[in-house]
């Protein structure tokens, strides 16, 4: 099972890197979104996949009675999902605003902050 997921994670990483190498902002953002999912799957897999019950302690006991699933990776994934989700939402709005203001979504043409024809610094006093 871990092997299968590892291949899937590798595929996710490949797709996201391919998308991020694009010049279009939208594709880069899609790449970022897929990268986030790849990382989440990676955390999930690195916590080991087991067929086990949820780690709930019964009322009459104070420790787990049977072997239970590891809850920590799930907590980590949840945190990472929330974070990557909010970042994705923010970047999406940002890219949209940038597209409106700059009139392009091509990373090569976004040269407002670093103009191509920047004059050289003064050479003599």
């Amino acid at each position, binding site marked *: 099972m871990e092997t299968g997921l590892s291949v899937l994670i590798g595929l996710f990483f490949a797709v996201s890197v391919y998308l*991020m190498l694009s010049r279009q*902002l939208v594709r*880069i*953002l899609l790449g*970022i979104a897929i*990268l*986030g999912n790849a*990382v989440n799957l*990676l*955390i999930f*897999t*690195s*916590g*080991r996949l087991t067929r086990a019950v949820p780690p709930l*302690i019964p*009322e*009459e*006991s*104070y*420790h787990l009675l049977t072997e239970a699933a590891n809850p*920590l*990776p799930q907590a*980590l994934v949840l*945190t*990472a999902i929330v*974070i*990557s989700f*909010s*970042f994705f939402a*923010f*970047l999406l709005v*940002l*890219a949209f*605003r*940038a597209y409106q*203001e*700059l009139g392009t979504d091509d*990373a090569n043409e*976004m*040269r*407002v*902050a*670093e103009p191509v024809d*920047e*004059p*050289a*610094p*003064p050479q003599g*006093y």
Partner: protein
Amino acid sequence: MKCALPNPSTNLLPRKDTDRMAGVSLNPELVAQAMNTTPVTPGDWLVIAPSILTILGGTLCLMARKNTDLQPKIGIGFLGLLVLANAALLARVIDRGVLTMVMGNWLPPFGIAFTVDALGAGLSLVASIVAFCAGLYASVSVDGTGRRYGFYPFLLLMMTGVSGAFLTGDIFNLYVWFEVLLISSYGLLVLGNDRAQLDGTVKYGILNLLGTNLFLVATALLYGVFGTLNMADLSQKIAALSGSETGTLSTIAALYLLAFAMKAAAFPVNFWLPASYHTPNIVVSAVFAGLLTKVGVYALIRVFVLIMPAARADLGDLIALLAIATMITGAMGALSQGEVRRSLGYMIITGIGSMLGGIAVGTTLAISGAIFYAVHSIIVMTALYMAAGIMRLMGGSYRLRELGGLYAASPAFAAVFLILGFAVSGLPPFSGFWPKIMLLDAMLSSGRIWVATALLVSSFLTTIAIGRIWIYSFWRGGPEGIADGTAIALMPSDKALSSPALWLSLGILTALVIFIGLQPEWMLQLVSRGASGVVEPMGYLRSVFGGA
């Protein structure tokens, strides 16, 4: 909105969560294995105080977003409290050694621990001083619109992230604090919605998010291998590894190096910094210049010196190479720019290279030098950007071609800028001199001649770059095209220039630069304490795991 607290007149029965879990009584021995049972004094709460104070202050400011006069008062007030809390925390760490507080009483490695040593507390204190000065400066330079869009809330929440990153003892928690400071920094960077800002923020945003995702990948693999995320626990488990098991560790270490190098703006992955740092309001640039990259350097020290020293030794040559490239390209970049802010942006990168050089060497002296350099760089880079803002107010531009005659307008300010320029290029007697001496000493004594050479060459080039800025903006008679001697002194026209807050904030930082330069002994003690705390982490481990 009601708080979830009952009316005091009803019958209050405070109970612990642990009591209500079951019909059976809990075995106290089992509880003691998982939970902290010793009472936590209010003094211990200083560990968490910086993070709590900034969250409370930031949210209060955000709720008062329409009241643009009240916001700076709340913001500066809480930043002042933050400085006091950090100072008390550092005093306590120096007095009692490493402090640990576990969230929700769950003992490490189960719970999230905040572990504060001299390194974390020292950097946190310096960062809070810088943020306090930035808050003061912003009360002049950020207008009502900027305040309504949330300058102070974002500044405070960014400080939550910065303080949390410096103080936490859990590597996943470090990731979370990175993200907190990152999302607040996006807000600060895009404040004002200028075209150049949107352009810069897109690049900054995407590349930094990529960096934190790489950090997360490395952390996931680390968890998969060692099954723990607590830094002290990791440090123990990695130290216990035998030689044949270190293969995976090298991969993880390389990923961490890439991720943190990206955050710290080290050579091949630093293009987001010159693309974005000159776009926002100058006070935002100032805080970023001081804090953000140094958090990356701090994380590098934490991970490579405390957690996986073996991996640092393996990657030492690579880090040294990166350090050389970062220093030289940074200095060349600073020379190639005719705009003050962009030139300063490259100087940040040069400083990062020097700190990386210290990490590459890895001895206690070298790490002390790197920490000292980080402290110096936090103060001096912020001060330089603030000074650039004042230059803009006086001369009307950030471009060297359009600046001139500022010496005549204010000789005192020219002196301050010259002091900061001496400091950033590492000339005595200011704060940049001592860390460079320590780094050079460490590099030469461990035989890394090329790193030492690069450090000296980059310092020399930085001296030229900052000297050129000073000569063009301050020393010559007037802007380009006006013959020397005919230029009239540019009179400070902007009424913001007469505001004491502007000068006070720059003055505090300059005074620190001079003071550290003239009285370096206490700083040397502090940084060598911080460095030996991570190089030989006995105290750190004892603090987290108790006497065991």
